[in-house]
Protein backbone atom coordinates (compact mmCIF):
# COMPACT_ATOMS: atom_id res chain seq x y z
CA UNK A 1 0.00 0.00 0.00
CA UNK A 2 1.59 3.23 -1.10
CA UNK A 3 1.52 5.98 1.49
CA UNK A 4 -0.58 9.02 0.64
CA UNK A 5 1.70 11.91 -0.29
CA UNK A 6 0.77 14.72 2.09
CA UNK A 7 -0.72 17.66 0.23
CA UNK A 8 -0.56 16.07 -3.24
CA UNK A 9 -3.65 16.45 -5.44
CA UNK A 10 -4.12 15.69 -9.09
CA UNK A 11 -4.51 18.86 -11.07
CA UNK A 12 -7.87 20.51 -11.64
CA UNK A 13 -10.55 19.83 -9.07
CA UNK A 14 -13.98 19.60 -10.68
CA UNK A 15 -16.35 22.55 -10.29
CA UNK A 16 -19.75 21.69 -8.84
CA UNK A 17 -21.66 22.55 -12.03
CA UNK A 18 -19.92 19.77 -13.93
CA UNK A 19 -21.21 16.99 -11.69
CA UNK A 20 -23.00 14.50 -13.92
CA UNK A 21 -20.88 15.31 -16.93
CA UNK A 22 -17.65 13.75 -15.67
CA UNK A 23 -17.54 9.94 -15.71
CA UNK A 24 -16.28 8.04 -12.66
CA UNK A 25 -12.53 8.23 -12.06
CA UNK A 26 -12.05 11.17 -14.41
CA UNK A 27 -10.92 14.72 -13.69
CA UNK A 28 -11.47 17.83 -15.77
CA UNK A 29 -8.83 19.60 -17.73
CA UNK A 30 -8.89 22.83 -19.69
CA UNK A 31 -5.81 21.73 -21.65
CA UNK A 32 -5.84 19.37 -24.57
CA UNK A 33 -3.07 16.91 -23.68
CA UNK A 34 -1.18 15.31 -26.53
CA UNK A 35 -0.61 11.64 -25.81
CA UNK A 36 1.40 9.95 -28.50
CA UNK A 37 2.85 6.53 -29.04
CA UNK A 38 5.12 7.66 -31.82
CA UNK A 39 6.31 10.49 -34.02
CA UNK A 40 3.53 12.62 -35.50
CA UNK A 41 2.62 11.39 -38.96
CA UNK A 42 2.45 14.21 -41.46
CA UNK A 43 0.60 13.03 -44.52
CA UNK A 44 0.43 15.60 -47.29
CA UNK A 45 -3.12 16.40 -48.28
CA UNK A 46 -2.45 15.57 -51.92
CA UNK A 47 -1.56 12.04 -50.84
CA UNK A 48 -4.29 11.64 -48.22
CA UNK A 49 -7.31 9.43 -48.81
CA UNK A 50 -10.03 7.94 -46.66
CA UNK A 51 -11.78 4.61 -47.29
CA UNK A 52 -14.83 2.83 -45.90
CA UNK A 53 -15.98 -0.73 -46.49
CA UNK A 54 -14.90 -4.31 -46.51
CA UNK A 55 -11.42 -5.17 -47.71
CA UNK A 56 -11.42 -5.17 -51.51
CA UNK A 57 -14.74 -3.32 -51.75
CA UNK A 58 -13.98 0.05 -50.24
CA UNK A 59 -15.22 3.45 -51.26
CA UNK A 60 -12.38 5.95 -51.23
CA UNK A 61 -12.32 9.73 -51.18
CA UNK A 62 -9.36 12.02 -51.72
CA UNK A 63 -9.02 15.19 -49.65
CA UNK A 64 -10.96 17.45 -52.01
CA UNK A 65 -13.75 14.91 -52.36
CA UNK A 66 -13.89 14.33 -48.63
CA UNK A 67 -14.10 18.04 -47.83
CA UNK A 68 -16.92 18.38 -50.32
CA UNK A 69 -19.09 15.93 -48.36
CA UNK A 70 -21.78 17.33 -46.07
CA UNK A 71 -20.23 18.13 -42.71
CA UNK A 72 -21.46 18.93 -39.23
CA UNK A 73 -20.33 21.17 -36.41
CA UNK A 74 -20.59 19.33 -33.13
CA UNK A 75 -19.79 20.14 -29.51
CA UNK A 76 -19.03 17.11 -27.36
CA UNK A 77 -17.39 16.06 -24.12
CA UNK A 78 -14.35 13.81 -24.43
CA UNK A 79 -12.93 11.33 -21.92
CA UNK A 80 -9.43 9.88 -22.07
CA UNK A 81 -8.58 6.56 -20.44
CA UNK A 82 -5.63 8.28 -18.74
CA UNK A 83 -8.31 10.00 -16.63
CA UNK A 84 -8.65 13.48 -18.05
CA UNK A 85 -11.97 14.74 -19.43
CA UNK A 86 -12.57 17.87 -21.43
CA UNK A 87 -16.06 19.34 -21.78
CA UNK A 88 -17.62 21.23 -24.68
CA UNK A 89 -15.02 20.55 -27.34
CA UNK A 90 -16.03 21.69 -30.80
CA UNK A 91 -15.29 19.84 -33.98
CA UNK A 92 -16.20 19.87 -37.63
CA UNK A 93 -16.35 16.67 -39.64
CA UNK A 94 -18.29 14.23 -41.73
CA UNK A 95 -20.76 12.00 -39.92
CA UNK A 96 -19.90 8.33 -40.17
CA UNK A 97 -23.59 7.81 -41.05
CA UNK A 98 -22.93 9.80 -44.24
CA UNK A 99 -19.81 7.78 -45.04
CA UNK A 100 -21.50 4.42 -44.46
CA UNK A 101 -24.52 5.46 -46.58
CA UNK A 102 -22.24 6.46 -49.46
CA UNK A 103 -20.13 3.32 -49.12
CA UNK A 104 -23.16 1.04 -48.96
CA UNK A 105 -22.29 -0.26 -45.53
CA UNK A 106 -22.51 -3.77 -44.33
CA UNK A 107 -20.78 -5.46 -41.45
CA UNK A 108 -21.41 -5.29 -37.73
CA UNK A 109 -17.90 -4.21 -36.73
CA UNK A 110 -15.30 -1.70 -37.89
CA UNK A 111 -11.53 -1.53 -37.54
CA UNK A 112 -10.06 1.94 -37.89
CA UNK A 113 -6.67 1.99 -39.60
CA UNK A 114 -4.36 4.97 -39.13
CA UNK A 115 -1.09 6.45 -40.33
CA UNK A 116 1.62 5.25 -37.96
CA UNK A 117 0.18 1.73 -37.86
CA UNK A 118 -2.29 2.26 -35.06
CA UNK A 119 -5.69 0.51 -35.12
CA UNK A 120 -8.80 0.45 -32.96
CA UNK A 121 -12.06 -1.48 -33.17
CA UNK A 122 -15.59 -0.09 -32.74
CA UNK A 123 -18.97 -1.77 -33.33
CA UNK A 124 -20.73 -0.17 -36.30
CA UNK A 125 -23.75 0.44 -34.06
CA UNK A 126 -21.52 2.82 -32.07
CA UNK A 127 -20.55 4.72 -35.21
CA UNK A 128 -24.05 5.36 -36.53
CA UNK A 129 -27.12 7.38 -35.59
CA UNK A 130 -25.14 10.54 -35.02
CA UNK A 131 -22.61 9.03 -32.62
CA UNK A 132 -19.40 9.41 -34.66
CA UNK A 133 -17.59 11.57 -37.18
CA UNK A 134 -14.40 11.76 -39.13
CA UNK A 135 -13.29 15.18 -37.93
CA UNK A 136 -10.91 17.55 -39.70
CA UNK A 137 -11.32 20.72 -37.67
CA UNK A 138 -11.09 21.44 -33.96
CA UNK A 139 -12.14 24.69 -32.31
CA UNK A 140 -12.71 26.31 -35.69
CA UNK A 141 -9.21 25.54 -37.02
CA UNK A 142 -7.88 22.73 -39.24
CA UNK A 143 -6.98 19.81 -37.01
CA UNK A 144 -3.27 19.98 -36.12
CA UNK A 145 -1.09 16.95 -36.81
CA UNK A 146 -0.28 16.42 -33.12
CA UNK A 147 -4.03 16.17 -32.42
CA UNK A 148 -4.61 13.76 -35.27
CA UNK A 149 -4.81 15.94 -38.37
CA UNK A 150 -5.55 15.89 -41.28
CA UNK A 151 -8.48 13.87 -39.87
CA UNK A 152 -9.28 11.69 -36.91
CA UNK A 153 -12.15 9.50 -35.88
CA UNK A 154 -14.37 11.09 -33.24
CA UNK A 155 -16.46 8.74 -31.08
CA UNK A 156 -17.05 10.78 -27.93
CA UNK A 157 -19.28 8.34 -26.08
CA UNK A 158 -16.36 5.90 -25.79
CA UNK A 159 -12.93 6.47 -24.20
CA UNK A 160 -10.88 8.74 -26.41
CA UNK A 161 -8.35 6.10 -27.47
CA UNK A 162 -11.15 4.90 -29.75
CA UNK A 163 -11.18 8.32 -31.46
CA UNK A 164 -8.26 7.25 -33.57
CA UNK A 165 -5.85 9.94 -34.73
CA UNK A 166 -4.60 10.09 -38.34
CA UNK A 167 -7.43 7.77 -39.43
CA UNK A 168 -7.27 6.58 -43.04
CA UNK A 169 -9.94 3.89 -43.25
CA UNK A 170 -12.83 2.18 -41.54
CA UNK A 171 -12.62 -1.46 -42.49
CA UNK A 172 -15.90 -3.31 -42.00
CA UNK A 173 -15.72 -6.83 -40.60
CA UNK A 174 -17.89 -9.62 -39.24
CA UNK A 175 -15.82 -10.07 -36.08
CA UNK A 176 -15.00 -7.66 -33.26
CA UNK A 177 -11.23 -8.10 -33.48
CA UNK A 178 -9.21 -6.15 -30.93
CA UNK A 179 -7.23 -3.18 -32.18
CA UNK A 180 -3.80 -2.07 -31.02
CA UNK A 181 -4.42 -1.12 -27.37
CA UNK A 182 -7.23 -3.63 -26.99
CA UNK A 183 -4.71 -6.36 -27.80
CA UNK A 184 -2.62 -5.29 -24.82
CA UNK A 185 -5.49 -5.42 -22.37
CA UNK A 186 -7.55 -2.30 -22.84
CA UNK A 187 -11.29 -2.89 -22.89
CA UNK A 188 -12.77 -4.15 -26.15
CA UNK A 189 -15.67 -1.63 -25.89
CA UNK A 190 -14.55 1.23 -23.64
CA UNK A 191 -17.63 2.89 -22.09
CA UNK A 192 -16.39 5.64 -19.73
CA UNK A 193 -19.67 5.66 -17.79
CA UNK A 194 -19.15 2.03 -16.83
CA UNK A 195 -15.42 2.73 -16.38
CA UNK A 196 -14.48 0.08 -18.92
CA UNK A 197 -10.80 0.90 -19.15
CA UNK A 198 -9.32 -2.59 -19.14
CA UNK A 199 -10.43 -6.06 -20.29
CA UNK A 200 -12.57 -7.58 -17.59
CA UNK A 201 -13.78 -4.25 -16.15
Amino acid at each position, binding site marked *: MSPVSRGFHRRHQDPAETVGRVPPGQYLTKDF*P*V*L*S*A*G*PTPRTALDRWSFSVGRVGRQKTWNWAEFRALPSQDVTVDIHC*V*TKWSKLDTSWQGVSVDTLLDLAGHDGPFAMAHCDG*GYTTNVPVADLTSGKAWVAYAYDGQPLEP*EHGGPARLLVPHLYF*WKSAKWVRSLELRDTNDPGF*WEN*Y*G*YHIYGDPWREQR*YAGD
Partner: protein
Amino acid sequence: MEAVDGNAIGGLMHEVFGTEMTATASVCGNCGDARPVAELMVYLQAPGTVVRCRTCDSMLMVFVTIHDRTCVDLHGLAVLG
Protein backbone atom coordinates in the same frame (compact mmCIF):
# COMPACT_ATOMS: atom_id res chain seq x y z
CA MET B 1 4.80 15.34 -26.88
CA GLU B 2 8.47 14.86 -27.68
CA ALA B 3 10.05 11.50 -27.24
CA VAL B 4 12.38 10.79 -24.37
CA ASP B 5 14.86 7.92 -24.49
CA GLY B 6 15.40 4.53 -22.95
CA ASN B 7 16.91 6.03 -19.79
CA ALA B 8 13.36 7.01 -18.83
CA ILE B 9 12.20 3.39 -18.70
CA GLY B 10 15.16 2.14 -16.72
CA GLY B 11 12.98 1.57 -13.66
CA LEU B 12 10.18 -0.07 -15.65
CA MET B 13 12.56 -2.42 -17.42
CA HIS B 14 14.39 -3.31 -14.22
CA GLU B 15 11.04 -4.22 -12.69
CA VAL B 16 10.01 -6.32 -15.71
CA PHE B 17 13.32 -8.05 -16.46
CA GLY B 18 14.72 -8.17 -12.94
CA THR B 19 17.91 -6.38 -13.90
CA GLU B 20 19.24 -3.09 -15.26
CA MET B 21 18.61 -2.98 -19.03
CA THR B 22 19.45 0.53 -20.27
CA ALA B 23 22.98 -0.42 -21.29
CA THR B 24 21.76 -3.62 -22.98
CA ALA B 25 22.33 -3.94 -26.72
CA SER B 26 19.27 -3.88 -28.98
CA VAL B 27 18.86 -4.52 -32.71
CA CYS B 28 15.82 -3.32 -34.69
CA GLY B 29 14.00 -6.16 -36.39
CA ASN B 30 13.06 -3.91 -39.29
CA CYS B 31 16.21 -2.02 -40.27
CA GLY B 32 18.97 -3.61 -38.18
CA ASP B 33 19.89 -0.42 -36.32
CA ALA B 34 21.93 -1.42 -33.27
CA ARG B 35 22.29 0.64 -30.12
CA PRO B 36 21.90 0.45 -26.33
CA VAL B 37 18.32 0.51 -25.04
CA ALA B 38 19.07 3.91 -23.46
CA GLU B 39 19.31 5.46 -26.93
CA LEU B 40 15.95 4.21 -28.24
CA MET B 41 13.04 6.62 -28.69
CA VAL B 42 10.49 6.29 -25.89
CA TYR B 43 6.95 7.61 -25.89
CA LEU B 44 5.40 7.76 -22.42
CA GLN B 45 1.91 8.88 -21.45
CA ALA B 46 -0.03 7.11 -24.15
CA PRO B 47 -2.24 4.28 -22.85
CA GLY B 48 1.06 2.40 -22.77
CA THR B 49 4.78 2.98 -23.25
CA VAL B 50 6.04 2.55 -26.79
CA VAL B 51 9.74 2.20 -27.68
CA ARG B 52 10.75 2.88 -31.27
CA CYS B 53 13.80 2.55 -33.48
CA ARG B 54 15.76 5.79 -33.77
CA THR B 55 16.42 5.21 -37.46
CA CYS B 56 13.21 3.80 -38.93
CA ASP B 57 10.60 4.58 -36.21
CA SER B 58 9.35 1.05 -36.16
CA MET B 59 7.86 -0.15 -32.89
CA LEU B 60 10.37 -2.27 -30.96
CA MET B 61 8.77 -2.71 -27.55
CA VAL B 62 5.40 -1.97 -26.00
CA PHE B 63 4.79 -1.93 -22.24
CA VAL B 64 1.25 -1.81 -20.88
CA THR B 65 0.71 -1.82 -17.12
CA ILE B 66 -2.79 -2.69 -15.99
CA HIS B 67 -3.69 -3.31 -12.34
CA ASP B 68 -0.02 -3.80 -11.30
CA ARG B 69 0.64 -6.31 -14.06
CA THR B 70 2.89 -5.25 -16.94
CA CYS B 71 2.52 -6.80 -20.39
CA VAL B 72 5.61 -6.54 -22.55
CA ASP B 73 5.70 -6.99 -26.31
CA LEU B 74 9.22 -7.27 -27.70
CA HIS B 75 8.47 -8.59 -31.16
CA GLY B 76 9.84 -5.54 -32.97
CA LEU B 77 13.33 -6.36 -31.74
CA ALA B 78 15.66 -8.74 -33.54
CA VAL B 79 18.00 -8.79 -30.55
CA LEU B 80 17.83 -7.71 -26.94
CA GLY B 81 20.93 -8.45 -24.90
